[in-house]
């Protein structure tokens, strides 16, 4: 077999493998190439990343998403007022019916984020693909954004840190919040909380591109009722909830 033939065979073999992972069954695409962006390509507004959280599948007492978030991002997991928390589990109870619901609340990645409006230095910003971030190189720790956020999603780092995760630099005197695991999203992975929720057998969190009508998240939102928390504020969060 000539070298060219070998290369051709290898190519065909890869092709077959790729198809196998993409098409589990007719019409069911498991690994859609939604994150198809090369490292040197800048983000565009084509995609808008979001989360859909099904509170019917979320259990009170389960904090798999929170611990995964802490591990991924190097948070201590302590919950004093001065500790950074990127996801909080919130328990709801309707006093009239007694119905209870449990849900994770993190940065809601608003289309019109108040944290960005109030930031005096331009550190708080919304990336083209809808992820709301803090550029900690510019953040002066004034905490206006923490005041402005209706979801209490942001934290200030109060103490010096050591041994941070290489992918997630964090440091004293700067504000931070859920980044939607931007470092993972940029390499084509799902956020840590989504993985952990699925691994815990709940699959209550769906991550995907709200702008792509064929994505699992967009199809589910189109088909079933879901709400944005404090939709009355008109911020158009990228995180939506089912069953509350």
């Amino acid at each position, binding site marked *: 077999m000539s070298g060219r033939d070998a290369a051709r065979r290898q190519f065909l073999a890869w092709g077959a493998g790729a198809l196998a992972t993409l098409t589990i069954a007719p019409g069911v695409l498991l690994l859609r190439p939604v994150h198809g962006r090369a*490292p040197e390509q*800048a983000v565009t507004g084509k995609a808008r990343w979001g989360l859909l959280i099904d509170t019917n599948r979320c259990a009170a007492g389960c904090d798999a998403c929170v611990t995964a978030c802490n591990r991924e991002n190097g948070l201590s997991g302590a919950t004093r007022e001065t500790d950074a928390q990127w996801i909080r589990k919130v328990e709801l109870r309707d006093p009239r019916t007694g119905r209870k619901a449990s849900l994770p609340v993190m940065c809601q990645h608003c289309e019109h984020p108040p944290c960005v409006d109030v930031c005096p230095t331009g550190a708080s*910003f919304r990336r*083209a693909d809808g992820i709301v971030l803090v*550029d900690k190189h510019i953040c002066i720790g004034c905490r206006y954004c923490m005041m402005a956020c209706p979801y209490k999603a942001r934290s200030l780092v109060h103490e010096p*840190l050591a041994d*941070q*995760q*290489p992918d997630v630099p964090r440091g004293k005197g*700067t504000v931070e919040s859920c980044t939607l695991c931007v470092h993972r999203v940029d390499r084509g992975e799902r956020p840590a909380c989504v993985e952990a929720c699925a691994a815990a057998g709940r699959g209550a969190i769906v991550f995907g591109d709200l702008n792509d009508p064929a994505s699992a998240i967009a199809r589910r939102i189109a088909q079933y009722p879901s709400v944005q928390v404090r939709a009355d504020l008109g911020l158009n969060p990228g995180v939506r909830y089912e069953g509350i």
Partner: protein
Amino acid sequence: MKRVLEAVVVGAALATALATGWAISQERGAPAGRVPKPAIVQARGDKCVEPVEFMRRSHMQVLLHQRDRTVHEGIRTKGHSLKGCVECHASAATGSVAAEEGDFCRSCHSYAAVRIDCFECHASRPQAVAGGVKP
């Protein structure tokens, strides 16, 4: 009389300092010039991401440019990334680029009286061995 004594003491101190400086530069294998040079630990790999002459002078521009492109535009090329510098330049002794005086990013900086805050947030050790030393 007191003046003279002072001058002698200062002179002696200076001579000692110079001699020590010379001895150190000898020890580090620097050319036997009179100017001491920083001792820079050996990097992994055979060449830097840009010509060494350029990196010596302009690594800060390279880093700051990459920083803005990564944080705001999501561009994650390896070449100019700070994580990349750490992966190649962490010292064998501490596994870090900034844990001790002799580590890569500190050797020159303490010599040139530069202070950077990057490693208050950024990990100064490579990913695979966060907390350990690379073989």
